[in-house]
């Protein structure tokens, strides 16, 4: 009986011939990632060493990555204090993969890890962030863990009690229609699976639509796999993985590229013909409340957000800029853009993408998590509605439980920014202009 990709990966990392679903393993960790919640990890890590007469020392300072992204620059003295505590710990421990608040090497953790070449196919990556599933796009078994679990990893270099998960195979075939993107595919899939449909399992992506998909799109798929409950999304590595790691991430060392066994046993196989997909919208307040765009079109919007670890990559910004170039964000709508990293921000400047977005009326903010989780910028007022390319629309997510968040692709977000209502990017996009001056005089 053959093994799925994650079974083969775990067998390799644990030095075993075979791994069966449900086997309990303690794999060594190739990379352990945290962001500002590293402050809690440090607290728990120091507690482990209490009363041991040992100096608290992380197992390998080169295998820990810490990236400030959730609240950058700090929005409060409390956050600044957490960041300071982490900075001091990083210096003391000699942690090398540290990305402070900087305009050259800064960005969102789930973009920094791929673009800096920190992730290797065939390895185990953990992060104190649920969207750590992202890095399965490069063939790593990559998943989110709690801060105390991370403290244990920092001490031991391995993660305890990992149960080999069952696998759902997703076979995506065909060519995406114009204005339909990987984001629409993953939203559609989450709608099909439901928010718990892949709990304690992984998604393994196959099919010619995936083989043709650049790494940026694969990162979007794996990023949101957790919204169906998946422990990780995984794209078995291929020529595109190699190209990305070599050409874009600058990785020079040998890559261990393998796939699942041809006779691997899957819990379930889901086939999707992407050529039949329409733009998708996840409606409030769960990510699995997914509808084809026609069902939500016309909904009045107060805020559009393009960016995040899901859709803040260069091609996402280019798609938005192409639609918005020479047009304007609707008068009674505001649009915020959060590139996923400063490298992307700079490339987007070189290409005139940032300028086009700004001239259209978008506010281009610094790379970071921004309003996605409601902690920093871009909070919503009561009864306001946002359309975002981010990954979650839970009640209260954008800082206000009395507001609504819809999720979509960058193309849908850009088209909707022009009209001020949820708009199908495939149709003609008619701008709505408010005569602000006139109405003001009338009120007077």
């Amino acid at each position, binding site marked *: 009986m053959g093994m799925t990709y994650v079974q083969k990966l775990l067998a390799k990392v644990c030095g075993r011939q075979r791994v069966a679903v449900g086997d*309990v393993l303690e794999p060594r960790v190739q990379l352990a990632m945290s962001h*500002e*919640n590293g*402050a*809690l990890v440090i*607290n*728990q890590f120091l*507690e*482990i*060493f*209490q*009363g*041991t007469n*040992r100096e608290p020392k992380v*197992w390998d300072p080169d295998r820990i990555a810490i990236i400030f992204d*959730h*609240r950058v620059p700090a929005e*409060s003295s*409390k*956050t600044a204090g*957490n960041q300071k505590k982490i900075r001091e710990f990083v210096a003391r421990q000699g942690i090398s993969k540290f990305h402070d608040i900087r305009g050259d090497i800064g960005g969102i953790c789930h973009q920094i890890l791929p673009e800096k070449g920190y992730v290797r196919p065939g390895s185990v990556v953990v992060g*104190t*962030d*649920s969207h*750590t599933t992202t890095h399965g796009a490069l063939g790593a078994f990559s998943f*989110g*863990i*709690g*801060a*105390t*679990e991370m*403290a*244990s990893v920092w*001490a*031991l*270099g391995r993660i*305890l*009690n990992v*149960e080999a998960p069952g696998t759902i195979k997703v076979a995506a075939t065909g060519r995406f229609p114009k204005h339909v993107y990987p984001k629409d595919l993953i939203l559609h899939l989450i709608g099909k699976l439901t*928010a*718990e449909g892949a*709990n*304690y399992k992984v998604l393994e992506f196959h099919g010619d639509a995936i083989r043709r998909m650049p790494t940026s799109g694969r990162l979007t798929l794996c990023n949101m796999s957790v919204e169906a*409950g998946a*422990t990780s999304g995984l794209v078995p590595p291929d020529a595109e993985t190699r190209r990305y790691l070599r050409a874009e991430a600058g990785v020079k060392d040998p890559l261990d590229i393998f796939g699942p066994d041809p006779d691997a046993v899957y819990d379930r196989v889901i086939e999707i013909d992407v050529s039949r997909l329409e733009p998708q919208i996840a409606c409030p307040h*769960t990510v*699995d409340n997914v509808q084809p765009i026609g069902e939500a079109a016309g909904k009045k919007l107060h805020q559009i957000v393009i960016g995040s670890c899901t859709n803040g990559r260069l091609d996402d910004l280019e798609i938005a800029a192409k639609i918005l170039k020479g047009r304007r964000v609707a008068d009674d709508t505001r649009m915020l853009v959060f590139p996923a990293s400063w490298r992307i921000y700079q490339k987007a400047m070189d290409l005139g993408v940032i300028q086009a977005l700004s001239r259209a009326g978008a506010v281009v903010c610094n790379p970071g998590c921004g309003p996605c*989780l*409601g*902690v920093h910028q871009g909070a919503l007022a009561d009864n306001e509605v946002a359309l975002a390319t981010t990954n*979650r629309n*839970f*009640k*209260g*997510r954008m*800082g206000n*439980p009395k507001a609504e968040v819809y999720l979509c692709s960058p193309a849908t977000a850009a088209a909707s920014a022009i009209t001020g209502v949820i708009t199908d990017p495939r149709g003609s996009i008619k701008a709505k202009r408010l005569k602000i001056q006139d109405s003001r005089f009338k009120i007077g």
Partner: protein
Amino acid sequence: MAIIKVVLHLGDDVSTDIIYPGRFMATVLPAETPQFAFADNADFNRRLKAGEVTAGSAIAAGKNFGCGSSREQAVSCLKGYEFCVVARNIARIFLQSAINLGLNIMICPALEAAEGDELEIADDKVFNRTSGKSFHVEPLPKARQAIIDAGGLIPYTRKLLTAGVK
């Protein structure tokens, strides 16, 4: 056998954003997080802070409790009130963090309970004294028992470290 009262009844897919809203995430220490438990449920949060909810009470929930963000504050804030979470099932990261921090959790796939119900808690079943119905409890994964027995992941890891198992 403990008898505890359901003080909060919740549906399916309760995310960690509901349990501990993101805007309070700069607060990380377990001693400080309980004040923000269910902060967007103003009345319940007020009762918690006013000490009107008996420590050790039950939260009854549907499927996929604790889904979403990995923020451990969502576990530590409940641990602060010694809640017992009885849910039809529990999302992966939340379940592991609950075991790691020693939060009482019971996976009870057919659970039916309403606010005010009294539950009799045993290892393998939950008996709802109010409705008279009994519900099977799924055992936690065996491999986790060592962590529970050690009193949580911190003492367990400390034990591994000092035993030189690495």
